[in-house]
């Protein structure tokens, strides 16, 4: 594929993520923070997010598996996940965390389990999408092209 085409794909792909609500304005903020002094900033932050979230999701799974679920702990984890997902702009993950917290407050185990599934799904989705996005960028750069600046207004 030639560079121009790749660039267009990238733009379209990125737009779609925003339109679908997978990412929100906060992600744009991150992109704006990236500059020459720190050209991989977004990628680094996103990796951190993946690591951290994976850990949190594992903890959550474990906690909910206990015979006596400690909702405070569950809530704390979800709260953290909510914070980090909102910081990078993973909107759907954040929203599902919000719903999750409500069930925590209500101490509803089943609801929590369902929410956990939901959060995991959303997380995997955003992970997938972002990985694709970065790959596209890499391909463009490898082909000698430059990353187009996208004008997205939110």
């Amino acid at each position: 594929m030639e560079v121009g085409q790749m660039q267009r794909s990238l733009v379209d792909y990125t737009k779609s993520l925003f339109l679908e609500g997978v990412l929100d304005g906060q992600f744009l903020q991150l992109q704006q923070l990236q500059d020459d002094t720190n050209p991989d900033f977004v990628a680094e932050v996103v990796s951190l997010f993946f690591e951290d979230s994976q850990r949190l999701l594992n903890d959550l799974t474990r906690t909910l598996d206990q015979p006596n679920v400690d909702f405070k702990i569950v809530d704390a984890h979800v709260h953290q996940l909510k914070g980090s997902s909102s910081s990078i702009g993973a909107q759907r993950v954040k929203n599902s965390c919000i719903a999750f917290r409500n069930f925590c407050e209500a101490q509803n185990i089943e609801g929590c389990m369902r929410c956990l599934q939901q959060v995991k799904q959303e997380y995997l989705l955003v992970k997938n999408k972002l990985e694709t996005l970065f790959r596209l960028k890499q391909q463009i750069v490898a082909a000698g092209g430059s990353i187009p600046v996208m004008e997205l207004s939110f």
Partner: protein
Amino acid sequence: MSTASSSVVSDQFPAGLRVLVVDDDPTCLKILEKMLRTCLYEVTKSNRAELALDMLRDKRNIFDIVISDVHMPDMDGFKLLEQVGLEMDLPVIMMSADDSKHVVMKGVTHGACDYLIKPVRIEALKNIWQHVVRKRKNGWKEIEQSGSVDEGDRQQKPSEDVDYSSSANEGNWRSSKRRKDEEDEADDRDDSSTLKKPRVVWSVELHQQFVAAVNQLGIDKAVPKKILELMNVPGLTRENVASHLQKYRLYLRRLSGVSQHSCNSFISPQDASYGPLSPLNGLDLQTFAATGHIPAQSLATLQAAGLSRSTAKSGMPMPLVEQRNLFSFDNAKLRFGDGQPQHMNSGKQMNLLHGIPTNMEPKQLVNLHHSAQSLGGMNMQVSPHGGHNGQSSSILMQMSQPQARGQILNETTGGQVARLPTSTGQPILSNGIAGGVLARNGIVENGRAGYNQVPQTSSMLNFPLNHAPELPGNSFPLGSSPGISAITSKGGFHEDANSDIKGSAGFIQSYDIFNDLQQHKPNGWELQNVGVGVGLTFDASQHSNSLRSNIDVAPSVLINQSYSSSQRNGQNSNATVTGKAIFSVGEGIEHRNNGQNVGQHMNNLLGDNSMRIKTERVPDTIFQPALFPQHFGQEDLMSALLKQQQDGIGPAENEFDFDGYPLDNIPV
């Protein structure tokens, strides 16, 4: 920070500001660091609070400002905040993904100079330097000053300033409270912007000496001069001690929850009596506390909140103005109920106060209290300070019957579902009037119920507002505890929870909140009231009517105009506020709309179980903006409400029977 500030206060300022950021979330930490660097600040990050404290203690004056997350595994963010405040006197900004009112409130009471909601945007960070400047200028002012300080203008003694500052100072800032001591001023006034005096660092040893001196003198007698003498530390000035004392007092207050009014200046006279409307509602709290209903803590909290308000004390409940917060506390209830308090966890009532965001609250609360008092038991409707009604509240109160109060009180406290038991749909005159919710039946909380605290400063109110104006039905604690006003229950503010307050179930919970502001169960009350004309649907569970009251968080607790909480911005469901305006019951919680309906305060008269805010389930449409017009003619509201009442607001089980409380009584 001390004079090192001179480096800070340079031409490049705020570039080079030395920031310490603490957050256990690595993603956020990294992002923040980058953002701060982009703002040209010097950033140090730490993911452990203990480490951060060590860094701060280790080398003094290497940071200008601290930003910390609230929820951290190794140490609570608030604890860190306190430590830093006490030991280093640095401005601390809290941040969290949690935006619920009570947490933000906690930040305020613990002395944070700002609270940021995650995700943090870079724009929010660009201005943090103002806190550094302000702190220097004001020293330890509890109150934030909005004065802008120009570097050139800062001549005042930057170091911790005593609370009294003389106006002699250049006066750029508006520290109204401060009076500078002559001696200090002369010395400090250097020119411009740099801090003159090196900031005194209160090391652990020094602090211990200080505490020993204070204990020796007795906390009541501990005046800076004597403390200074006892400590006998060379180089320490009276001002240093004074400001440290102020902080220390605040700290103690926070710990004990009461006893001192946060505003030293303010509170001094605690008039147990009726409500010193004075600045803090807390004052009222005192009264309540006196009555035994209000738990000391609540008072303390209130006080803190109230501090800012130094409104006039005195019986004028209404004077509180503007404050959005109108929590209609049931203070009145407390009063009335004497005896009643039973349900009310005094805490509950207090909670209301708690909820009351400092800003307004004090007034509001005060009003409540006062009103309550004045009314003789009428729910204190927190007079809508917001300028709305001041009048109304009182009116409502009158309506409230002492009995009702008792009920209300009971109601509110009770876990009872907020449903205000009383079937009566007592019209909730929200307008200014405490949510017309007549406590009668199930207290109507003016939307407040859920609102706890919401009333607090408008900011608080905003929360709920954003969310669907519906008040989570449950939050209407109205029914239960007396605190109708208390209803400010937190629940209301959950932004996320926009639930309509349908389930009255929420109510009871809301009261819990009151008790402990902490709890805010979103249920119910998302107080939509808050300024936004929250459409509270109070669902006094019992009646399927859901009160949709846009609870305007009007300070006036009394629901004047039967605006029952429905007042929502633009939506007023007057009618919805059925249930008699139980104003009598604990003053309705006034929710003040953020500026919206001034008149519409939903006074939640929660107080009795009977009070119920019966709001018809009106679809949002019901609350037409028309209602907003601030004060609806009472007649209109009343009629609307009364109509609603027909449904069944029968004599509520509660003692009061407000049936058909004619709103006329309520002078709007």
